[in-house]
């Protein structure tokens, strides 16, 4: 019967009741990035934490300088620097417990080093002697991930699996501003929120995806605002304020650990160096912008606070720098040795057992190597 036919009987009916699935207001990020250093809140920061962060930042800066130098000496194929972003790298590592997992992007070797990984192992991928230089399960650091944002769903799946097993494990996944445009970013955040997985997503918004500025990447009010669409809280933090980043990430990790589900943290920072040693940043940005960020340097910010409060003196600063120099000297010494390579390793771990086809190819390479050696004598 049409409405015309049932005239008199039909009453316009409202749709079945609708309400938002969750209240969006508490999920919204603050109006401005959260800061501690340079504000009154700094006075309440734990002195031990400040000293620890400072030592790690100084070490991180030295690590960046050393790795960049190694590219110039031909000892690293490529190095994407985190100079200026050390606060994010270091805080991401320090907020995690032993059993937690870190999911770094290709730029985040410093976070892996700050978590305790040997810098030589962290740089294996970039030296080019193998793809992953460490056992991910031993260190609970996923392989450095080059395809952007593709490691984010891994973090969600791992955290979900741990929760299903009843284990106390949080996964912290790192991505850049460019990576937030990838589909995997969207799918990872959506799965994490639906499953209430214990994951923290840290976006380091360093201003550029190689050469492309954020304005060409997104029209969102901020990257942290994207969290609201997934039903998870978004937090904005000054990414050069190590104390603030540490506090925001520690809160998010605690929230995840207590069963509160995922959080998206956007840290506002700046990539002081070019994308890698192979990039020319003068083609897409001006020096005055770089200088403005150099003035908001994470190490200077923290050193100022420590000095003002009398928590560090010249000897303390020297000790931090000496420790960093020692690390750099060891790294240099290791990287100046040629890695020992066995071409037969190419076939070792393609499958648990090589296929008959790979066995044939393995034999072929072995014969080629033997011929090479014979020719050499």
């Amino acid at each position, binding site marked *: 019967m049409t409405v015309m036919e049932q005239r008199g009987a039909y009453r316009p009916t409202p749709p079945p009741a609708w309400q938002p699935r969750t209240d969006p207001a508490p999920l919204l990020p603050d109006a401005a990035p959260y800061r501690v250093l340079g504000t009154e809140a700094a006075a309440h920061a734990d002195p031990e934490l400040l000293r620890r962060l400072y030592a790690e930042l100084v070490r991180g800066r030295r690590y960046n300088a050393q790795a960049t130098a190694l590219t110039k000496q031909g000892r690293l194929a490529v190095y994407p620097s985190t100079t200026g972003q050390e606060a994010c790298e270091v805080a991401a590592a320090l907020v995690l417990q032993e059993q937690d997992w870190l999911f770094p992007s290709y730029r985040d070797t410093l976070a892996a080093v700050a978590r305790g990984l040997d810098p030589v192992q962290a740089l294996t991928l970039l030296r080019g002697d*193998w*793809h*992953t230089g460490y*056992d*991910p*399960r*031993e260190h609970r650091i*996923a*392989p450095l991930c080059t*395809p952007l944002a*593709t490691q*984010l*769903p*891994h*973090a*969600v*799946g*791992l*955290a*979900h*699996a*741990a929760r*299903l*097993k009843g284990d106390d*494990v949080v*996964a912290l996944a790192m991505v850049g501003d460019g990576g937030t445009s990838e*589909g*995997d970013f969207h*799918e*990872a955040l*959506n*799965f994490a929120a*639906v499953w209430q997985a214990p994951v923290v997503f840290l976006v380091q918004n360093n201003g550029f995806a190689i050469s492309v500025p954020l304005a060409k990447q997104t029209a969102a009010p901020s990257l942290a605002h994207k969290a609201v669409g997934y039903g998870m809280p978004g937090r904005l933090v000054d990414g050069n304020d190590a104390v603030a980043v540490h506090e925001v990430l520690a809160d998010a990790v605690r929230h995840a650990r207590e069963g509160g589900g995922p959080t998206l943290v956007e840290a506002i920072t700046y990539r002081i160096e070019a994308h890698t040693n192979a990039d020319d940043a003068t083609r897409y940005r001006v020096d005055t912008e770089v200088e403005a960020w150099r003035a908001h340097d994470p190490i200077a910010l923290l050193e100022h606070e420590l000095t003002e409060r009398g928590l560090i003196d010249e000897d303390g600063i020297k000790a931090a720098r000496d420790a960093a120099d020692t690390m750099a000297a060891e790294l240099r010494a290791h990287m100046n040795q040629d890695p020992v390579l066995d071409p037969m*390793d190419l076939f*070792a*771990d*393609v*499958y*648990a057992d090589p*296929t*008959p*086809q790979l066995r044939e190819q393995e034999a072929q390479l072995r014969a080629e190597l033997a011929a090479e050696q014979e020719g050499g004598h």
Partner: protein
Amino acid sequence: MTTVALKPATMAQALTRALRDAMAADPTVHVMGEDVGTLGGVFRVTDGLAKEFGEDRCTDTPLAEAGILGTAVGMAMYGLRPVVEMQFDAFAYPAFEQLISHVSRMRNRTRGAMPLPITIRVPYGGGIGGVEHHSDSSEAYYMATPGLHVVTPATVADSYGLLRAAIASDDPVVFLEPKRLYWSKDTWNPDEPSPVEPIGRAVVRRPGSSATLITYGPSLPVCLEAAEAARSEGWDLEVVDLRSLVPFDDETVCASVRRTGRALVVHESGGYGGPGGEIAARVTERCFHHLEAPVLRVAGFDIPYPPPMLERHHLPGVDRILDAVGRLQWEAEN
């Protein structure tokens, strides 16, 4: 001695049984995908699993294939053994980046430290009257990716045995289910399921002496029918069911071709860049002096999968196979 009554069962039922037995035997086996929980999957292959094992073990995921496979990677990193369902062949493409950049190479890039025991079930192939994007033969893409095993059953018994083997494998397996055979029946005793077949072994389904039809998955019944029809022409055709495209069983295939001296590869996938080219090359390289004729391919055309009302013209059928058999240079023998 008791006699076991063999009952007819469908391939879909045998697959369900394999999933159920794997989940019962190993608590780390988790099934995940779109509609696999409450509904039991659009082909009902996961029917009853959520009810029996709970939704944490058989999970309806958000509708996002890259997310499904990407989270499965993380679950496998933590020691679980995910069995992922891609709803249809052409819906699996969004997951390609995860498959190629991570699933296939995680063992290799971590020097064996982190293998990923993930089974990716993909209903594939045509012949069910499906509309666009529901009938692709995507096996060549998977075969071209090192680090994956690519397996496809063609019989009820194999679907059980190969799926158990795939789930038990410590390597990722792309498990291609010929969807038009889901409802094919065979006598099969679910109380004494067939043993778990090792992955990588082809099998001679029909012995013959005139020529070898090399095939797999949905084309096996077509080849068997063609072999029966060929008898009236005086040809006694051998039919080899590959079962596994990676690894490839050169031994069984080449032993057959050396016996018969002639070979045809039959599949639904397009011929250009399809599995048949690789197989023909392998056979030629290994059996050249035994061959009486070039190895021919009987394949789908090199076109996007056609609309359902035209698909019968695309799929290799008995006539196309017999026509190709006729071109295997028999005159030389007379």
